[in-house]
């Protein structure tokens, strides 16, 4: 029968230990949510980056701007396409169908019959080979069609990227606060336990128990309670994520695209109970050792 592992401190069922458990549950739950927000914004940024980096949109002014020369522009578009198709840096190039241009402009110009007759600019989507600079291609385009406009989407990406990064940072900061809260909780709960069991600990000392034996008990207890609390927190997180995903699906996917989260994120979540447990164990051990040094 192992004495230190079971029976000599009544810490298994005291208020403080149950308290650690449920508080860790709440903290891990919140940390999981924050981690998900952070991972989601990260994925979102990557998604946008991926769909935008290495792409250019070339805009060739509308065909009817100069009423006298109605056929000027198809020539410009053809020139641009011709240049790009043989350019070494270009991976893929295609003219955007007029219907898609109309759809893009719909929020601004409406979709009535009137619009379908509008003189719209021609758009060409260009995909560059990975790692190439946009400059060479841009120069080639401008040479072929001086009136063309080249947009590399940077302004827009920076703007939304700032927002997403801000959200991610707040989520990260929240996780930091939660870790600190966890440590403090364990320290306080351990101190409460120490106060509650001061007499018991003194007796144990007086009959020859070592500091390590006693600190080890508190630490093991904290490890167990925090890990259990962490698992409960994840158990709470799973359905919550489901509900949030359901709510998010009601929002337009252009606003919140359905990006997948990296495997590392799920690994992080799975490790949260362990992290909480180890953090709690460490905090308890240090607290108890320090307190014991002032005792008999």
């Amino acid at each position, binding site marked *: *029968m192992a*004495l230190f592992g079971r*029976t*000599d401190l*009544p810490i298994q069922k005291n208020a403080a230990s149950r308290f650690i458990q449920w508080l860790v549950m709440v903290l891990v739950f919140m940390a999981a949510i924050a981690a998900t927000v952070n991972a989601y914004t990260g994925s979102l940024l990557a998604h946008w980056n991926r769909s935008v980096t290495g792409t250019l949109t070339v805009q060739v002014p509308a065909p009817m701007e100069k009423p006298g020369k109605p056929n000027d522009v198809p020539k410009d578009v053809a020139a641009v396409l011709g240049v790009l198709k043989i350019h070494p840096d270009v991976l893929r190039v295609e003219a955007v169908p007029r219907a898609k241009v109309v759809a893009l402009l719909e929020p601004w110009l409406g979709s009535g019959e009137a619009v379908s007759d509008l003189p719209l600019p021609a758009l060409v989507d260009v995909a560059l080979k990975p790692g190439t600079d946009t400059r060479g291609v841009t120069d080639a385009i401008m040479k072929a069609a001086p009136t063309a406009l080249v947009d590399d989407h940077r302004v827009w990406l920076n703007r939304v990227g700032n927002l997403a990064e801000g959200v991610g940072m707040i989520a990260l900061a929240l996780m930091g606060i939660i870790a600190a809260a966890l440590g403090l909780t364990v320290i306080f709960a351990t101190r409460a336990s120490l106060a509650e069991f001061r*007499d*018991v600990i*003194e*007796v*144990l*000392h*007086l*009959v*020859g*128990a*070592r*500091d390590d*034996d006693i600190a080890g008990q508190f630490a093991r207890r904290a490890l167990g309670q925090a890990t259990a609390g962490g698992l409960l927190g994840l158990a709470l997180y799973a359905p919550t994520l489901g509900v949030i995903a359901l709510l998010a699906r009601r929002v337009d996917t252009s606003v919140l695209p359905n990006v997948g989260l990296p495997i590392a994120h799920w690994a992080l979540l799975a490790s949260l109970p362990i992290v909480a447990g180890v953090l709690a164990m460490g905090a308890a051990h240090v607290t108890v050792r320090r307190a014991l*040094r002032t005792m*008999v």
Partner: protein
Amino acid sequence: MAFNRKKNKPFEGDTVALDTVDLSYDGATPVLSAVNLALPQSSFHFLTGASGAGKSSLLSLLYLAKRPTAGSLKLFGEDVTGASRNKLAGLRRRLGVVFQDYRLLDHLSAFDNVALPLRIARVPEAVVTQDVTELLKWVGLAEQMDAHPPTLSGGQKQRVAIARAVVNRPKLILADEPTGNVDDTIAVRLMALFVELHKLGSSVVVATHNESLVSRFPFPRLHLDGGRLTLLPPLKPAASILGEG
């Protein structure tokens, strides 16, 4: 009753040696001043003195709960000044204390309380069961083995405390008013326990107010008065010891 386990680590010289020890709690008025004391192995002493004279304080120096304000303290031949906490724990395992206020663990049964020193010393559980059961029967608590201290009477708690102090067959036994809550019949039976251990080689110190108890045993008295310790002769002449034990 039989104590059938391996002996404690042997040592040379006196069990306890105090050299001009002072103790004061607030740094000003000394509770003990210039106390010299040598307790040889296998000795037996009463410790007397008025209430507040410093009996419990002196004992707490010996069981290493307090440190002398001045002077040196040797236990089992080792100087405790500057000893590590683990070292102190090791020394404490070799002595047994009956605290004036018992200090039992309320969440453990009487049996587990008595077993505590053995378990901390990692004694095999079979031995623990045998020794603890035998000892609890001796002090008259065969019925109360599974009772927790809050459900024990005052005298029953005191007997559990005594059993816990002697179960490890320590080389030094310090008993602080160990019979204050039991009647005379039980008191004599408990004293017999200390006397047997003393005969087997332990050094025993019993602090008490109970003059009638002191007068029944032929042991010298350590008397505390005004912080000074003096050795007084037994109240009962040594010749009659055979009639008692």
